């Protein structure tokens, strides 16, 4: 089997950070209808195995393109830049300071008088920073400044992690 196309080409979308989500779901649905192993359930095991591999590739492609962070990482991966593993690249100290402050605030929330209000406020701030980073990424990536784009993605990773922790704390507080 040879799945040589990248996720964008496989689904039939332009290689770009900008993505029409309804188009993504429409096209992936068309492909699902063709590729799903259920279409081959009555055929030989061999054909089913091939279908499973293609369908798994499609599912992975959809999951990657749907998420803004994964999509950005994947765009850089296509340029041979790996942002998913540990790196020794220095991150701007100002950004790190900001991260530490945000984290400290998160830690103090459980003892606040109205933790849910505080949580919502923090969440809003983090999302705003993230949005700015995404815009900056698009600009750097499209103008070919891959090193800035890479640094933006690394920062996005910090913030996505923080969002997850906010969500987790919310679950905890609700229980």
């Amino acid at each position: 089997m040879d799945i040589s196309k990248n996720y964008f080409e496989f689904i039939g979308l332009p290689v770009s950070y900008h993505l029409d989500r309804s188009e993504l779901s429409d096209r992936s649905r068309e492909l699902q209808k063709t590729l799903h192993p259920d279409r081959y359930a009555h055929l030989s095991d061999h054909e089913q195995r091939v279908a499973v591999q293609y369908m798994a590739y499609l599912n992975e492609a959809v999951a990657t393109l749907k998420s803004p962070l994964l999509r950005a990482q994947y765009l850089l991966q296509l340029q041979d830049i790996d942002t998913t593993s540990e790196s020794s690249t220095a991150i701007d100290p100002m950004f790190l300071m900001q991260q530490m402050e945000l984290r400290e605030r998160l830690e103090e929330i459980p003892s606040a008088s109205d933790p849910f209000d505080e949580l919502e406020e923090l969440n809003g701030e983090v999302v705003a920073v993230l949005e700015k980073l995404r815009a900056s990424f698009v600009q750097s990536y499209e103008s070919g400044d891959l090193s800035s784009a890479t640094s933006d993605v690394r920062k996005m990773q910090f913030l996505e992690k923080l969002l997850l922790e906010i969500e987790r704390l919310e679950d905890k507080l609700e229980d």
Partner: protein
Amino acid sequence: MALLQIAEPGQSEAPHQHKLAVGIDLGTTNSLVASVKSGEAVTLPDISGKHLLPSVVRYLPCGNIQIGEEARGFASEDPFNTIVSVKRLMGRGEEDVKSLGDEAPYHFESSDSGMPFIKTAGGNKSPVEVSAEILKNLTYRAEDSLGGELVGAVITVPAYFDDAQRQATKDAAKLADLKVLRLLNEPTAAAVAYGLDQGKEGVIAVYDLGGGTFDISILRLNKGVFEVLSTGGDSALGGDDLDMALAQWFAEQIDKSEINSSESRYLLEKARFVKEQLSDREHACVVLEMDSGCHEFDITREQFDELVSPLIKKTIRAGKRALKDAAVEAEDVLEVVMVGGSTRVPLVRQQVQEFFGREPHIDIDPDKVVAVGAAIQADVLAGNKPDSDMLLLDVIPLSLGLETMGGLAEKIIHRNTSIPVARAQEFTTYQDGQTAMAIHVVQGERELVQDCRSLARFVLRGIPPMAAGAAKIRVTFQVDADGLLGVAAKELTSGVESSIQVKPSYGLEDAEIAEMLKASYMNASEDKTARALREQQVEAERLILSLQDALAADGDLLLSEEEKQQLSAEIDVLIELSKGSDTLAIEKGVTVLAKASDEFAARRMDNSIQKALQGHSVDELGDAG
């Protein structure tokens, strides 16, 4: 759609050949088999006209086996050899089985694979073997009734079944010599029976009150995908408890503080009769003939409702919890589907309707609805409906991961990921010169391994000795369309490949299955070699037909003349081989031909992707920046 044309093997010879496929509801209390006949999905009765097969198997010392009604009669008289509710034991380890207590009052014996075997007069039996007996019985029934060999079956499983339980169900089918077209979630099957997969997108609640279990599932239909949002219920609450409540009331009324087991059975029988009467009447009369004389009762539906109301309230509370887990409100629920015989009780319907604020679907017999839905999907999967658009996409119910240092679970595939899916993650060694790595596969949402379900353990050996952290071990998880997991591990840096495929703990080893198959052939006094030969011939036939069809459809387009001739020649070789009686040679021929057609299959797949994307011009595929 292009591929659908190839999905019709043998079209030239027999254009409208209907393939025999069934849906099987392998239930805790009762099992059923259904099939699409003249366009309509119906359950198939046994010779005496009964549709429900009690899920009971009794093993006799002489080696004979009783199944269904016949076996159920001995449940209290011969409890250790009469296996009821075997579904509760499927894919479970010794600890789980012990924790079931009275629900599984059998004598267990441990095995090497960690799967408990039940000691019976007919020998030690695994839960998989017991389930296989039920499946065999239903298969025979279907083949008799439909008049031919089945191409396969869709078997339903509860939505909350984990990988081990699904694997055990599939193993049971293998043992019963039944090809599984797909394992389907029970609530999804019920929704399909009502055609909800064709309907509006939204939240669907499936309320399933069976004989001994209660399940509530909250599903979301989104772009053809049934996603299980949450499941809840009570594995020890069902219609039997309603009977029990009424039987106890009888005992109080006739002032019998001590009742023996045969009296208790008698009262339960009468209680069930009254319950059924009250499903469509306002009151029911019953005469109880006891030692103390005859007692006559006229019970109103109101009286009955009062007795069972606490039990039904319990199910509604479970429904509330399931909604909360799914993070949806009762008014978000678009459709409510009723499953299980006990949903005939008017109070159940009334309470469910009140809770969800809408009328539940009750038109299809609630005992049969799951089997009917499974049959509809089986018909599509067997290739009988090439124009059908129906595609049930599924997600994995629980996250899959690995144990890492410190007993933490590292999730590799998160819950609610669309399946099939393959995902790889790289790990490394912890010590200098480490040549082996223990891999522990777990399933669940919790952070600590001890709180997750252990699915499999295996050791990857043969890692070349190097400094700690230098080896790169890629662990690949692959989940197929049935939600079953395969795990492979491979060492990358040195180029040395060691990989292993695992099956879940508590599952049967392939060798064990082979052994049991062998034993079952002997029991059925069937010629083992003839059976094996037939199996290989069927597999060869399937491959030949699908390739011939593919050649006819796409051969000219996708293969050079030379390639085409070569493939045709290879097909002819297998056709010749499969006329013979050399099982091994046919098996080998199948492998050879499958490999030879690999490239063709890939080209066809690529071609159909192209076709699926047609209408979207290639110009759209611009580059970034």
